[in-house]
C-alpha cells in the first residue's frame, strides 16, 4: 500500500514538474486566466468579496486564498496581504501554517500591518501598482473607502496587471469601482469518503452580485487542493450512494 502511495505521489510530482518546465520554456505565463466558478476574474482589476459578518469573514478569505493559490499555479506572483493591526485580537492574524493548503507559497507572501484606514489605503495603492496578488482586509465600514479610493486602486491595478481582492463587510454600503462584486458565505464542506463524520474539501456559497461585464449568478464552489483548482461543486453536497464505487476516482485524495 505504502509503495503504491509513493509511486502515485511521484508520478504526480513528475507531472507537475513537467508542467512547470513547459511553462518556463514557452513563456505560457501570458495565459493569465483565473476562474471563480464559471466567471473569469480579469487581471489588472479590483475584485470585491463581501461577507455577512465577522464569522463569515474567514470563508471569504478562504475563497480569496484559493483564488490566489490557483493563480499561483500559473505563475509565481507575490501575495501582499494588507490588514489593520488593531483588529488582530478580534479577527485573528494570518496564519502561515494554513496557507499551503490553498497552494499559497508563504515565501511569496508579504504581510502588511497598517495602523489605520489611511495607512491601509496607502499600502493598498502602493501594492496595486505592483504585479502581484493583493489581499486587502477592510472589515470595518469607513467613509474613506469610497468611490474615489476604489477607483484609485482600480487605476493602479490596471497599470500593473495586479489582482486586488478587497475583502469587505456586506453591510458596508459604500460605493465601489470594483470590477466584480461577490458575496461569500461558508457552505458545508464536501463529503470525505473516508470519514463520514469529518470535514471534506472546503466549500463556499458565492454569489456574483455585480460585474462590469453584466454577469450574475450563484454557485457553490469547492477547493480541490490536490490539483490546486477551484471547481463547481456538485449540486448535492452529500453523495447518496455508497462511497465504495467511487474509491478509484478518489484515490488521490485517499492516498494523500
Amino acid at each position, binding site marked *: 500500500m505504502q509503495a503504491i502511495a509513493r509511486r502515485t505521489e511521484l508520478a504526480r510530482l513528475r507531472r507537475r514538474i513537467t508542467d512547470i518546465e513547459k511553462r518556463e520554456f514557452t513563456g505560457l505565463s501570458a495565459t493569465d486566466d483565473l476562474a471563480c466558478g464559471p466567471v473569469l476574474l480579469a487581471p489588472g482589476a479590483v475584485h470585491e468579496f463581501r461577507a455577512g459578518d465577522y464569522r463569515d469573514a474567514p470563508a471569504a478569505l478562504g475563497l480569496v486564498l484559493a483564488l490566489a493559490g490557483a493563480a499561483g499555479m500559473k505563475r509565481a506572483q507575490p501575495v501582499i496581504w494588507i490588514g489593520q493591526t488593531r483588529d488582530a485580537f478580534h479577527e485573528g492574524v494570518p496564519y502561515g501554517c494554513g496557507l499551503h493548503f490553498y497552494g499559497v507559497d508563504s515565501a511569496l507572501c508579504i504581510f*502588511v500591518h497598517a495602523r489605520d484606514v489611511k495607512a491601509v489605503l496607502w499600502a493598498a495603492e502602493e501594492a496595486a501598482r505592483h504585479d502581484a496578488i493583493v489581499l486587502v482586509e477592510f472589515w470595518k465600514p469607513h467613509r474613506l473607502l469610497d468611490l474615489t479610493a476604489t477607483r484609485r486602486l482600480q487605476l493602479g491595478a490596471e497599470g500593473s496587471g495586479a489582482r486586488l481582492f478587497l475583502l469587505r463587510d456586506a453591510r458596508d454600503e459604500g460605493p465601489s469601482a470594483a470590477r466584480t462584486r461577490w458575496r461569500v458565505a461558508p457552505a458545508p464542506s464536501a463529503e470525505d469518503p473516508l470519514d463520514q463524520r469529518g470535514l471534506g474539501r*472546503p*466549500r463556499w456559497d458565492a454569489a456574483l452580485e455585480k460585474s462590469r461585464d453584466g454577469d450574475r449568478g450563484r454557485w457553490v464552489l469547492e477547493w480541490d487542493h490536490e490539483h490546486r483548482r477551484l471547481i463547481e461543486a456538485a449540486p448535492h453536497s452529500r453523495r447518496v450512494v455508497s462511497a465504495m464505487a467511487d474509491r478509484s476516482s478518489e484515490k488521490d485524495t485517499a492516498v494523500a
Partner: protein
Amino acid sequence: MLHEKTKSALRIRAMDARAAQLGFYQGQALADARAIEPKLIAVEAGREEEARAFRRLAEELMRYSPVVCVQETGEVFIDITGCQRLFGGEDVILEDLTSRIRRAGYSARAAIADTAGAAWALARYGEEGVVEQGAHDAAIASLPVEALRLPPALSDRLRRLGLKRVEQLYGMPRAPLTARFTKTLLLRLGQALGMEPEPLTPISPAPLYYSQRKLAEPVSTLEAVKSILAPLAQDLAGALVRDAAGARRFEVSLFRVDNHVTRVQVGASAPARDAVHIMRLFSNRLDDLQDDYDAGFGFELLRLSAFEVRPLAVRQRAAFDLKSDRAAQDEALAELKDRLSNWLGEKNVCRMRFRDTHLPERAAVFTPVIAPDDKPEHSPGAGARPVKLLPRPEEIEAIAEVPDGPPLRFKWRRVAYAVARANGPERIADEWQRKEASGATRDYYRIETPEGRRFWLFREGLYGRETASPRWFLHGFFA
C-alpha cells in the same frame, strides 16, 4: 574640582586649572586638600554621567570623520584618513576641533600623527599640533616612556633602569625587551611607531561607503537638505555600482553648527544602490521628522553613509530577456517592500518565518522583511491548520458527548453553535522546556457547524490525568 571615593577615602579625581596652580594633585585625599584650602568647591564625580557626556561629545566629533573611537572616558581617537581635503587640511581640522571643544566649555589637547599611539603620546606628554607624515618617531623620541601608554608598574621599572625617554628604546634588541618587560612594551612601542597594527573600535560602526558635503553656508530648510542629499546619493550609488555592491541600510547625518547631530536611518529589504530609490526612502522619513526636525542655526555638514554592504551584481538590461525581466520584477518588489517598511515601520511589513515547534502560536511568526536572515528556517508542518489564528485562544463553553471526544455544542462570544462534523483529536503537548509552559496537553479538533463555518477548537488538559474538568478554547478559523 571633582572627587570620588577610592580606597576608602574621598580623593581628588579631576580639577580645573586654578586648583592645579594651587598645587593640588590627582589622587590627593579631599580632607588634606580641604585643610589647605577651605574654600575649595568639590563635587562628587559620577563616572557613568561622565562617560555619557563624553560619548555625546564624541558623537559630535563624528563630523570630522565617521571613525571616532572612545577607549577610555576622556580620550578619543579620530581616524581622519581621507577627510583632510573636505576641511582644507589637517591643521584646519585640529584648530576647528580644539576651538569647538573649548567653546563647549571643556579643555582639550589634541595632536595629529601617523599612528594613534604617537598622537596620544603627543597630546598627553608632548606638543600639540600636526606631525608631518613619517616624522612621528622623531616627534615622540624625547617624550617620557609613560607616553607609550604603559601600565604604571611597567613604566616605573623602566625608569628605575634608567630608560626614561622613548628614544632610548628605539635601538634595543627586541628579544631581551620582551623577556624582561612582557609583550606589552613592544606592542605599545610598535603601535606608536606604526609597526604593530592598532585596531580601533568606533563608537558607531564605520560605514564602508559614505559621501559627505561640508557647506560654506549652513542650510536649514528641508528642501535645501534634500537638494544636497540628491548629489550625495548619486556619488554613493556610483561608488556602489563600481564595486558591484549594494547596501541594506542607509543613514543621513546632519551636523548642526552648534554641535548637534540629527541622524535618520532607512532600511532596505534587499541590497539597494539606486540613487532615486535611496532618495525616495529618505524623502518620506525626512518629511516625517517634523517636530524632531530642528535646524537651529543650520546644518554645516551632511553625510550619507551606507551600512550592511553586500555584493550586488550589475544588472544588464537586455530587451526581451525573460531572465532580466524577472530580475527587474524582483527589484521592483524589493523597492515596494522598502517603501512600505520605511513608511509604516519596519516591524509592520513582515514575512512568515516558521519555527521548529509544535505549539501552533509559536510555529509561525511574523518577521520584518528588513532583517538579516540568520535564523534557521523550518518548513511548515503538513497538518491541517487554519488560515487565521487568534493571538490568544478564547475560552468557550463546550458540551461534549464523551469527556475525550469533540464537542456537540459550544458557545463563543455569546453565540451558540452546533457541531455537525469534526476531525480530531490532534494532540499537541506543551513544550515542557519552555519557561512559560503551562504543561497542559491540548487536543485540537477541526469542527464544522451545520451552516459550514469551520473552527479550530482545543481542549486543554488530558481528562482524568491532568485535569478533572478540562477547559475548551477557540484558537482559529478555517476557511
